[in-house]
């Protein structure tokens, strides 16, 4: 992946997403979109049960529902400004798309239990986060859908388990983490050694 090439793409999409967010600041519109989301699940949209056998709760259950704190009527008002000094969520270091992305470029500003909607206005649930990823990373999303990008286990001719984007890429810091390699192979016997007795 070449982060530099992604920047212009991310910029364009960010502008679009922010635009969409402003529209959604109306609660009525949000409620509508929520209904859409319900509808979508049943009718045509790819769902976890239907298209991809993905793990249903990608978020740990211990996480309090976001709306407990966030929301128009709660303690933390919506703030689109990028800040470094947030007291809560200190475990998250946002390193995604350089300095151009901010929490609300993905998280729904009005209802943090959801992610930002697709361009058709339908909000995205956490368990379908890949739909949101695909908004910026369209080609990779397509490859992932075809099983080209990402990992699948299970059966080559039957039930497969898909790894979600966020299984391998922390959405706040998506770069794949380096790891220690397994030991290199032993070098073969060479004539300079005395061949060990066996």
């Amino acid at each position, binding site marked *: 992946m070449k982060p530099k090439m992604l920047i212009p793409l991310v910029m364009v999409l960010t502008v679009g997403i922010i635009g969409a967010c402003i529209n959604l600041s109306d609660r009525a519109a949000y409620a509508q979109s929520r209904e859409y989301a319900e509808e979508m699940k049943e009718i045509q949209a790819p769902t976890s049960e239907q298209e991809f056998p993905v793990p249903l709760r990608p978020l740990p259950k211990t996480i309090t529902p976001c709306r407990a704190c966030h929301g128009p009527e709660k303690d933390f008002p919506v703030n689109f400004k990028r800040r470094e000094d947030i007291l809560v969520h200190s475990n998250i270091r946002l390193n995604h798309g350089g300095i151009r992305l901010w929490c609300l470029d993905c998280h729904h500003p009005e209802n943090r239990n959801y992610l930002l909607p697709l361009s058709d206005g339908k909000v995205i649930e956490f368990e379908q986060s890949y739909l949101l990823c695909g908004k910026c990373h369209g080609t990779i999303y397509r490859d992932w859908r075809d099983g080209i990008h990402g990992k699948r286990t299970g059966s080559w001719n039957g039930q497969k388990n898909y790894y979600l984007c966020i299984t391998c890429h922390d959405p706040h810091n998506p770069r794949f983490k380096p790891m220690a390699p397994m030991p290199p192979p032993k*070098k*073969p*016997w*060479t*004539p300079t050694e005395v*061949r060990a007795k*066996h």
Partner: protein
Amino acid sequence: MKNFIVQAVKRIVIGPPLYYAWVSLLLVLIAVGIASYIKQLEMGLIATGMTSYVSWGFYLGNFTFLVGVAAAAVLLIIPAYLYDFGPIKDIVIVGEILAISALLMCMMFVTADLGRPDRIWHLLPGLGILNVPSSLLGWDILVLNGYLFLNLFIPGYIIYKAYNEKPVNYRLLLPFILLSIPWAVSIHTVTAFIYNGLAARPFWNASILAPRFLASAFCSGPALIILLFQIVRHYTKFHVKDEALHKIAEMIAIAMAINLFLLGAEFFKELYSDTHHLSPLKYLYLGMDGKGRLVPWIWTALVFNVVAFFIFLIPFTRKKFLTLNLGCVLIIIGIWIEKGMGLIIPGFIPAPLGEVWEYAPTTLEILVSLGIWAIGLLLLTINLKIVLPIETGEFTKHSSQERAFAAERA
């Protein structure tokens, strides 16, 4: 028949002290070789220097050299039977007997190289599966056995007639003799093709390989024959004319000229085009990645071959026995290096994925090989001990009967 066996055994058992010394030496080497081979069977091929990188080694090197020796009998057959060149016709039988020993040694070397000799029956057509025409190794087994049959049959028939003091019917023999000429070429060609057909190994995958095999075979085999004839005529009543030896030497000069020319052609192609196909040659002649075990050997071979070429080219040195024998020894060593280790090992270096891992035979491998050589030489000695007196007319049906009567009376 009973008389023949009794007398033949007597001839094998009785001999001068030098003969006993020679046979004892061979028997010791054979015993050591067999013991080493049993150890190799117990341990597995880990007992050898071979690895997954260099998966063929000393055994197949010797095998390749000996196929050349066996094939060289044809250089005697052509002048003897086709051109009716008297001096060689008298002695051609010795060349054929050498071929028999060489062939048996070839088969033993291949068997020693096999990981599972207990499964050798898998090669038998019908019972097992001999994968011809697909596998060149399968072909080689066929042609080597066919050549062994021809070389047992032709001299066997001649010896049988000589023993019974009857004239040889050359009209009966001629088809077999004619067949043995292309067959001799084929055993060495097919052996070359074993290596030649492998696109994975650019060092072997050059169409010049089979011609080079033949050219070098026609140097080393006859050189061995020249030495053998001198030993034979020194120790037995078997007569070998100088003329025959010089004729053979002349043929060696031509073969060596072709051999060196082909080597030069290969050098040019690889050096000028300078692709990765050059790497094995580079490893062989210059070393690679600081590894160059074969470098001194291959230069020795090259120098020996060139020096021998001039010895055989210049009539003065060719006809003088001191230099002639020196030339023969140089050629045998030179070709043994070039067509043995110098051919097999660089095929594997660098490995197809670029690594450079060297090979050298272990002591065990060398002992097993010496054992096989000793078996071959012992067979040669015994065969000559029986065949030569028959050829010279000392050992016939008549003489056997006389001796048998004499023994009964006593």
